[in-house]
């Protein structure tokens, strides 16, 4: 048994190939750690040891036959509980799906296992991925492993926490308005939102279909590249996944960052930004300049309208997508005297407060008499925000911003004020609306020891250059600046 505490994708492969550890031993080592730490963090909702050990046995057999090992061979991975897994309960952090066991795997899960990954279990999240703190889970909040009185961010809080706490080597999260990048920032690890259409969503429980993306949390950028490479690419089962060739990310990250043009939009450094976060991110940008990147000031004039547009579009789509939870085919059913009565009672009891609030807002925005004023107008503003990005990418290769205006806040600090919680998504929702890729990378810590995140956006389908910059930043010590 290994004494190693911090594993990487490459480290796992090497240890397996040289027979220092077996995939089975490694999985069991992670389950021991989970058993110790998860009761406090509440980051895993369901563990899947049977499936994990079956996969580990397949990997160990391949090792003993001397076969070439796939890229994620034996790597213990966690999956956010909005992504379907055959035979493993998938709750979406909601009471309405408390006992739901999907009959099929999401394409991302299938691809991870085909690449050799060992899926340890499913992670806690805000209900139906709606939230920025993980406090909206029906199964209780997740604690930030860096500071356990604080939130891990959301909605993929569990997926971020397990990687930051060493309870998985990597994990999948989902990002609709910042739900991978912001928890990555709060927990001090890289979290990547790929381009809209880069990764198949077949088997992802839908929240806002024009915005939802699946992406990885990892401990380092080489691992981000490895996991993204395993899950990216067109899927015949998802017509919203793009038939655009997948770059070789592990090769891309080896290229130097020198000469890259990095755009810095002043609109992201104004009022509301915590001074310590600002200082760290500016130091991060200066570090990239010292590596030979060319800094270019940018204006992205519609940034200030992104939250308003996002919360109309995302809730409108959610109100439609969540209409399926009616007690008829799967999930909770509360008996009623008529069909409508059954729908209403089921949804009243099954959904939590934030989900109901968003369904109400979205239904209102789409309802007769308000459609033009809210939904249609929000879609037009979305086009203006997307234009800010396409204009910027005429001049730069990447855009650098803070990921979130503050470090992780305390559990309970913002949960009573929904609008204040929404406003904290200001720097992430812009890229979500434009559909561009974005990563949050660690960028030092505040004096109180809380992680700060720097966000890097790139043009559509250019995850390679985003990761290349992220890797150069990591190699230059930017993560601990």
């Amino acid at each position, binding site marked *: 048994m290994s004494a190693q505490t911090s594993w990487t994708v490459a480290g796992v492969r090497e240890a397996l190939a040289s027979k220092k550890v077996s995939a089975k031993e490694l999985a069991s080592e992670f389950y021991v750690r989970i058993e110790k730490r998860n009761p406090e963090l509440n980051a895993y909702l369901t563990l899947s040891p049977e499936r994990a050990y079956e996969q580990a046995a397949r990997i160990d057999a391949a090792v003993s036959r001397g076969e070439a090992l796939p890229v994620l061979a034996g790597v213990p991975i966690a999956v956010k509980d909005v992504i379907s897994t055959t035979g493993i309960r998938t709750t979406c952090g909601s009471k309405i799906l408390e006992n739901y066991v999907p009959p099929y795997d999401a394409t991302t899960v299938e691809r991870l296992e085909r690449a050799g990954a060992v899926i340890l279990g499913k992670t806690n999240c805000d209900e139906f991925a709606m939230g920025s703190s993980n406090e909206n889970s029906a199964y209780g909040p997740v604690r930030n492993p860096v500071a356990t009185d604080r939130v891990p961010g959301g909605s993929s809080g569990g997926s971020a926490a397990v990687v930051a706490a060493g309870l998985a080597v990597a994990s999948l999260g989902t990002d609709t308005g910042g739900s991978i990048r912001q928890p990555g920032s709060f927990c001090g690890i890289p979290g990547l939102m790929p381009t809209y259409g880069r990764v198949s969503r077949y088997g992802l429980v839908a929240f806002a279909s024009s915005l939802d993306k699946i992406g990885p949390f990892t401990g380092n950028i080489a691992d981000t590249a490895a996991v993204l490479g395993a899950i990216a690419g067109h899927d015949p089962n998802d017509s919203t996944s793009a038939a*655009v060739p997948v770059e070789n990310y592990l090769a891309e990250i080896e290229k130097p960052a020198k000469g890259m043009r990095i755009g810095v939009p002043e609109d992201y450094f104004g009022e509301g930004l915590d001074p310590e976060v600002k200082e760290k991110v500016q130091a991060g940008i200066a570090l990239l300049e010292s590596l030979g990147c060319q800094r270019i000031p940018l204006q992205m004039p519609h940034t200030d309208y992104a939250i308003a547009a996002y919360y109309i579009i995302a809730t409108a789509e959610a109100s439609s997508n969540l209409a399926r939870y009616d007690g008829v085919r799967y999930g909770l059913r509360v008996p009623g005297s008529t069909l409508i009565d059954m729908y209403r009672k089921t949804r009243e009891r099954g959904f939590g407060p934030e989900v109901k609030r968003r369904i109400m807002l979205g*239904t209102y925005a789409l309802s007769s008499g308000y459609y033009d004023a809210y939904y249609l107008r929000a879609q037009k503003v979305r086009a203006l925000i997307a234009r800010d990005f396409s204009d910027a990418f005429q001049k730069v290769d990447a855009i650098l911003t803070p990921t979130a205006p503050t470090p992780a806040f305390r559990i309970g600090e913002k949960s009573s004020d929904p609008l204040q919680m929404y406003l904290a998504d200001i720097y992430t929702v812009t890229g979500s609306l434009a559909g561009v890729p974005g990563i949050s990378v660690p960028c030092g810590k505040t004096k109180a020891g809380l992680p700060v995140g720097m966000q890097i956006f790139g043009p*559509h389908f250019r995850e390679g250059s985003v990761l290349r910059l992220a890797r150069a930043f990591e190699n230059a010590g930017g993560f601990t600046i």
Partner: protein
Amino acid sequence: MKISREEVLRVAELAHLELSPEEIDTYRGQLDEILSYIDKLKELEVTGVEPMAQVNFHSDAPQVAESHPELREDVLRRCDVADAVLARATDAEKPFFRVPKVIER
């Protein structure tokens, strides 16, 4: 207030949510605050802007978009999932889901 109690009730009915009286008051206050914030969208001039409903994958390659590479052939495939699907329902009798009477409202 931007949103009346009657409107909250109407929206809840459209969304099939049976809200308690406390929830109605809470949501009314919160939706009012959120909608007041969202009013800032009205500051922008959007005449002539095409609404954006979806990210266009092939915006820089119209010839690719034209060939619809994401779509597969429309051919029948075997799909033996009825038992697995019905097994997840609270009340089913193959090949049906059973629900309460629908004729009363």
